[in-house]
């Protein structure tokens, strides 16, 4: 079943009701589907929420995930982001502790390279905000772990929306 195991994204319109998030996440655990990340927030219509879900799965499982989501009463629409052009970003905060002067210089350099923002600063610590694709954030986390002794990471999960004209991700 390892054929075509890869990361895929789904965007969902769901009813903004009590228990819907639990029902969606419950489906993934009940059926043993991988759930890599899930974000949710209300839309311009306060009765509707939009979710962006990332999952690592093979073709068949992914088809099944979409069908299972579709048959839920509270799910209004399922959009497969795999083969369409979307804008997708994730916010990532990295706090670096116990910084020497050299460490701080290194943090600033990383921030500049990744077009990230240094948003807070202490005697021996720095807080950086990255807004980029989840894949790039993976790379940043890996790099920062190698470079510094003590870091703290918070990730927001990807949010995505279909592109209007841009033919790239």
């Amino acid at each position, binding site marked *: 079943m390892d054929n075509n195991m890869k990361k895929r994204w789904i965007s969902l319109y*769901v*009813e903004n009701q*009590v*228990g819907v998030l*639990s*029902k969606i996440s*419950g*489906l993934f655990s*009940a059926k043993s589907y991988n759930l890599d990340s899930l974000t949710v927030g209300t839309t311009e219509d306060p009765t509707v929420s939009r979710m962006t879900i990332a999952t690592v799965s093979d073709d*068949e499982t992914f*088809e*099944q995930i979409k*069908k*299972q989501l*579709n*048959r*839920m*009463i*509270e*799910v*209004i*629409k399922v959009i497969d982001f795999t083969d369409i052009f979307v804008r997708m970003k994730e916010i990532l905060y990295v706090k670096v502790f116990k910084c020497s002067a050299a460490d701080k210089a290194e943090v600033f350099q990383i921030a500049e390279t990744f077009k990230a923002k240094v948003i807070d600063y202490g005697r021996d610590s720095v807080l950086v905000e990255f807004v980029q694709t989840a894949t790039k954030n993976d790379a940043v986390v890996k790099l920062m772990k190698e470079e510094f002794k003590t870091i703290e990471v918070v990730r927001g999960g990807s949010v995505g929306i279909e592109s209007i004209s841009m033919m790239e991700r």
Partner: protein
Amino acid sequence: MRKITGNKLLVRALKEEGVDTIFGYPGACTIDISDELYKQDDIRVILPRHEQALVHEADAYARTTGKVGVCLVTSGPGATNLVTGLATANYDSVPLVCFTGQVARHLIGNDAFQEVDIVGITRSITKYGVTVRNREDLGRIIKEAFYIARTGRPGPVLVDLPKDVMGELGSADYPQTVNIRGYKPNTSVHMGQLKRALKMLKKAKRPLFLAGGGVNIARANEVFTEVVNRTNVPVVTTIMGRGAVPTNHPLFIGNLGMHGAYAANMAVGECDLLFSIGTRFNDRITGKLHAFAPKAQIVHIDIDTASISRNIHVDVPIVADALEAIMKMKEYVEPCETAKWVSQIQEWKQEHPLDMKKHIQLGPKDIIDEMNRQFDDAIVVADVGQHQMFVTQYTEITEKKQFITSGGLGTMGYGFPGAIGAQLGNPGKRVIAVSGDGGMQMNIQEFATAVLEELPLILCVFNNEYLGMVRQWQKLFYGKRYGMTNLRAGALYRRTNGEEMPEYTPDFVKLAESYGAKGIRVTKREEIAAAFEEAKKNEKTPTLIEFIIDPEEMVYPMVKPGGTLEEMIIDC
């Protein structure tokens, strides 16, 4: 505008939905609803003796009438006792609406007396579940609940009713229409796909119909039989699909699967087109997955998109209601050249016919043969275990008969309450339950319900003093170590290292009599016919017939767990 309480609106909604019978057990959180039901005569209220039996009764009522089954139980334990029954109904696609009491809104989350998060608990075993949080939503939610339960792939819906919401005054209106933006069940058939499938059927050399429970649920049996007659294509069914064509039809081969007929499993292995309708290819019918129907292209018609291409790869998927699809098939099908293929199947049938060894005393098949002789328009309800497999193998299901059982979940204890629900929904029909001695004891308290409702049920208990199906596995695969399956084992058995055991308990005949039912014990083949004749005379009383069965009886053929369908144990 006149305002009424939620309790009043609920009763009104039930009437608008055409509900004539509800199954209810009272409690603190639903006492006001009990009171409203007391004040009216249109809806009959049945009081079972346990909520698990209650939901099975509503389930069987729904299966045998085609109506939505309705349950009303209180909060906390009343609600949690529904869980097994909801899962049973969910697996077998039975339309239920279950109302559960709930503590008042300000107490929710406080660990209040008899408070549970029943919507959360049942989330994965219901089609839909919701707590009514505002009085003004009540009418809409009930309307939607009935609509969701009976449309598309039917299933159980749970509506949780906080006590204060139900007491609140609000609109007396019950909506006439439903519009759920996330739920639009499919009603049409994709004709392009269907024609493609029918072209394959016409071309196939060894075509085979596989009918599942969906054909029975859609009540498409008659049309399906016409399609079979026109095409000359032989049929295998799942357990839930039994009766899709009459079992005495010349083109009916038998059930497939773990305890399927030899010829049926061979036919699946050899067919070049498997045309399947309303089945989800459960592991009990497929055996080893990659070796299932290895030579066949597969057509799959199902109302539930998620059932298609889940367990097996399907060449032509068609999302449709079975009745709609089969009606369309009837318009387009042509006769197929199947004579040679059918004669091959006949050879398999003769090679290993479904049969059991004749016993000196009394065998399961003797009982079922006599049932077939004496009852040609009955509803047969089977519990779960060896006896269930015997019933599915040998019971003739013709146009006037119906067979129901817990096929998907395999719920022991379903049989007896199932028979009660079926009889309540079909007062003019003969209802026969078949249970083992294990399953019979799982809802034995329902004798009180059956006696008080004056139901002329015939309850056949196949007593072999063991939990027979598990014992069968122990006999075949566990060196005859009968752990936990001996129903006479206890302290004496342990004390004497298995040398001594007390008499079997309970005495089913006396037990039936203590409830005011009739009891008959049958130990010889010659007594079977008379026992059924005797039972038929009890027009307002249930009759339990206890058949003493040899524990060494086995269900054959048997596909080895994890094996392919063609590798069957025929006999030992």
